[in-house]
């Protein structure tokens, strides 16, 4: 029973709680009067405090505790929610997050929190000095306890006191294990389990950690708050095997001896006392539904280490390669029985693939949930009023995509807030509501996930963009004249472009949006812009569902095989040579009424030429956004699911090649990056 084995759970849950606190704080800012939100935050903070104390992260527990005090003051109407207070609370959350990250990274979670603790204390003391109305400690009942008994600190005494007032009884249960008991920790665990079913265990002597490490003789004392009868509890405990004795007695509190200590601790204890009261009230009220809910959830999900999923995925990738090989062999042998078996296997592994890919899906929420904080901070920094509206946070994307998409989104949102949304006064003058809206929307469509970032700000000034692009030499006058509105907007994604008149440190160094574009394209996605001057703009990002296994069309160029991602193929065609037209130096075809330029793969890839010319061209029509191109190949081999592999560090930035894959025959085929071939 090592603490380590709980570490992962601790980290995961701490993150969840911190996130919950974050979200609720933002809600609270909008509805400062809503005390149920404060209670929610309180509950998360309280759990976090308990967990971190149990795990021995004192700084974490300490800071959470101080934060709780402030929240408590708010809850008791001693403090008004103000932006300043929330700033400090947010700052403490930042510290808490940093500590949890440190722990997750293998650190000890230590951090100098004195500054923030001071600030919290100041807030707390600023208006909470008066604690005289809080119930005083313990009118004590003479102790009749047996030799087993536990010492209680202020905090625990208060809890006991309060629970008694609520009609609970507090017992000390002295348990003695048989002296020949081998697995003491296991027995302790069983006793705890029994007791926790009957009520709330608030303390054990020796401490739980010591018990788990078997650092006790044969006896230990557990303090339990319950409504059950003493005899029932004793008989339940005695049912645990190897328990020699169990003695139960009602807890009676002696007053603390040291007057000084009492005075010193009074303030915090008083605050704690109240907090506990409400906690217990709440616990009573919510215990039933909460428990049943937890059970329902625990039946349906388990936490799996992401590494295991990655290993599973890797193994499956190997399987996909062999599946390709088998399909090829059975195709060559043409044995009906073999064909049937291979087909069956392909179907099953196809289902398996869907399941594995689904398992790796993560809701975009994991990326989105850090934005509300960011937007709040930015809005405050810029003195703007901004409402962030998140839609479809539950939309799922493959984890590999999730990891990459965060930064581009941050950039786009910053951009929308900095350049898009106007100052409140300006908005008022334009007849818009003072509060600007940034809408973040995610949804599935086909094999893609779409993310929209919409703002109701100034939109994009077409003239300004064009002039800037011209002055920076990104486009020529002639090109500019032929461009559609959307094409002009997309110029702001070109490198070396920044439309903000003044450069702020939020965005606008002119290196941003083109990085966004490159990142998204490297993920196999695309980005487009719609805008209306004066009423806002929409950035639309299209992303593939997964990056690891993709459908491709295998083509042959001379003796080499290339894979073209199916997602960018419109269709394939065979065109007579005489139907190819010449538009200046560019060869084009007329494809369903559209002029499509031809790209000869053998030229682009400098394929050694062996075959003689044929009368027909095999063409794969691919697209990038609205633009199309026809890739001229020698022959089509067929469609296949392949595993995307990188070319490694050594061969980075190969033109028009986005990666490689291993075919059924063990050879490597390169994956064509159609985006690079269409200008």
């Amino acid at each position, binding site marked *: 029973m090592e603490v380590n084995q709980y570490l992962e759970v601790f980290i995961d849950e701490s993150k969840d709680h911190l996130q919950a606190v974050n979200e609720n704080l933002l809600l609270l800012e909008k509805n400062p009067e809503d005390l149920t939100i404060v209670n929610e935050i309180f509950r998360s903070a309280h759990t976090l405090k308990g967990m971190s104390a149990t795990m021995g992260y004192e700084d974490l527990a300490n800071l959470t505790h101080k934060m709780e005090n402030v929240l408590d003051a708010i809850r008791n109407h001693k403090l008004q929610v103000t932006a300043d207070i929330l700033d400090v609370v947010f700052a403490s959350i930042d510290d808490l997050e940093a500590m949890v990250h440190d722990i997750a990274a293998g650190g000890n979670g230590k951090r100098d929190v004195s500054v923030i603790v001071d600030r919290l204390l100041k807030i707390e003391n600023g208006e909470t000095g008066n604690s005289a109305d809080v119930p005083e400690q313990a009118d004590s009942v003479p102790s009749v306890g047996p030799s087993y008994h536990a010492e209680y600190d202020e905090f625990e005494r208060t809890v006991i006191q309060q629970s008694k007032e609520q009609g609970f009884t507090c017992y000390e249960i002295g348990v003695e294990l048989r002296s020949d008991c081998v697995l003491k920790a296991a027995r302790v665990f069983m006793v705890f389990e029994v007791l926790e079913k009957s009520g709330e265990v608030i303390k054990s002597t020796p401490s739980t950690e010591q018990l788990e490490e078997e650092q006790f003789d044969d006896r230990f004392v557990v303090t339990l708050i319950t409504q059950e009868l003493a005899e029932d509890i004793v008989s339940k405990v005695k049912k645990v095997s190897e328990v020699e004795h169990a003695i139960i007695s009602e807890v009676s509190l002696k007053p603390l001896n040291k007057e000084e200590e009492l005075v010193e601790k009074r303030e915090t204890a008083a605050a704690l006392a109240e907090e506990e009261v409400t906690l217990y009230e709440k616990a009573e009220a919510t215990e039933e539904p909460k428990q049943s809910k937890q059970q329902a959830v625990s039946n349906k999900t388990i936490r799996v280490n992401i590494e295991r999923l990655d290993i599973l995925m890797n193994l499956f990738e190997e399987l996909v390669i062999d599946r390709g090989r088998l399909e090829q062999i059975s195709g060559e042998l043409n044995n009906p029985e073999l064909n049937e078996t291979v087909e069956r296997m392909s179907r099953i592994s196809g289902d398996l693939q869907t399941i594995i890919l689904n398992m790796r899906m993560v809701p975009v929420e994991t990326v989105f949930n850090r934005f509300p904080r960011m937007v709040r901070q930015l809005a405050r920094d810029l003195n703007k009023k901004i409402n962030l509206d998140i839609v479809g946070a539950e939309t799922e994307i493959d984890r590999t995509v999730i990891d990459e998409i965060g930064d581009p989104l941050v950039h786009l949102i910053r951009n929308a807030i900095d350049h898009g949304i106007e100052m409140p006064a300006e908005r008022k003058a334009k007849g818009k509501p003072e509060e600007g809206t940034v809408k973040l929307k995610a949804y599935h469509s086909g094999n893609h996930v779409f993310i929209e970032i919409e703002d109701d700000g100034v939109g994009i000034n077409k003239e300004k963009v064009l002039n800037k692009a011209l002055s920076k030499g990104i486009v020529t006058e002639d090109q500019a004249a032929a461009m559609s509105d959307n094409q002009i907007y997309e110029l702001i994604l070109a490198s070396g472009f920044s439309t903000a008149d003044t450069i702020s440190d939020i965005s606008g160094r002119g290196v941003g949006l083109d990085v966004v574009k490159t990142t998204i394209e490297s993920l196999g996605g695309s980005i487009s812009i719609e805008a209306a001057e004066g009423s806002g703009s929409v950035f639309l990002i299209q992303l593939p569902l997964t990056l690891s296994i993709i459908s491709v069309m295998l083509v042959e160029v001379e003796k080499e095989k290339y894979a073209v991602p199916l997602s960018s193929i419109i269709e394939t065609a065979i065109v007579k040579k005489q139907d190819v037209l010449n538009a200046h130096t560019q060869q084009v075809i007329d494809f369903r009424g559209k002029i499509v330029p031809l790209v000869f793969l053998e030229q682009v890839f400098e394929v050694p030429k062996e075959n003689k010319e044929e009368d027909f061209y095999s063409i794969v029509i691919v697209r990038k956004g609205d633009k199309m191109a026809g890739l001229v190949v020698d022959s089509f081999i067929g469609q296949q699911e392949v595993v995307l592999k990188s070319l490694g560090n050594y061969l980075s930035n*190969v033109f028009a090649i986005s990666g490689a894959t291993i075919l059924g025959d063990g050879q*490597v085929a390169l994956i064509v990056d159609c985006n690079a071939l269409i200008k």
Partner: protein
Amino acid sequence: MSETTAPSMIKVIAFQLMDKEYAFPVHQVRSIEKLMHITRVPGTVPFIKGVINLRGVVTPIIDLRKRFSLPEEEYDEQTRIIIAASSDIEVGLVVDGANDVLDIPNSIIEPQPDIVGSVEAEYITGVAKLEKRLLILLNLERVFK
């Protein structure tokens, strides 16, 4: 190179390229493979022969003859691919033949003479004369560049 070798000896892998023998420390060798299908990667420098499927990992291949501007020759039965690693890069080197693993005393390693065949001196860390054999010691980081 000294960090992974015993104070006085250095273990190297010796391989043939034309009529000369080259060597680099054995700890940089991942494996030695027989010739397999190499997929050409377009748009790379000429000495990059392409990529192979090394047990599921796509590994780039350098043709050492081309890298050293030696005359090209058809690959044959003796041709080997030595998979070598340097920092976080793993690359296969096509050589005429892998000879053996040798211990050479540090004391016999001499700085390179001014002219060693046609190989440019920048990838050479030194030469070692072992009985009748002359080994040219290579610096892989420089070869990869």
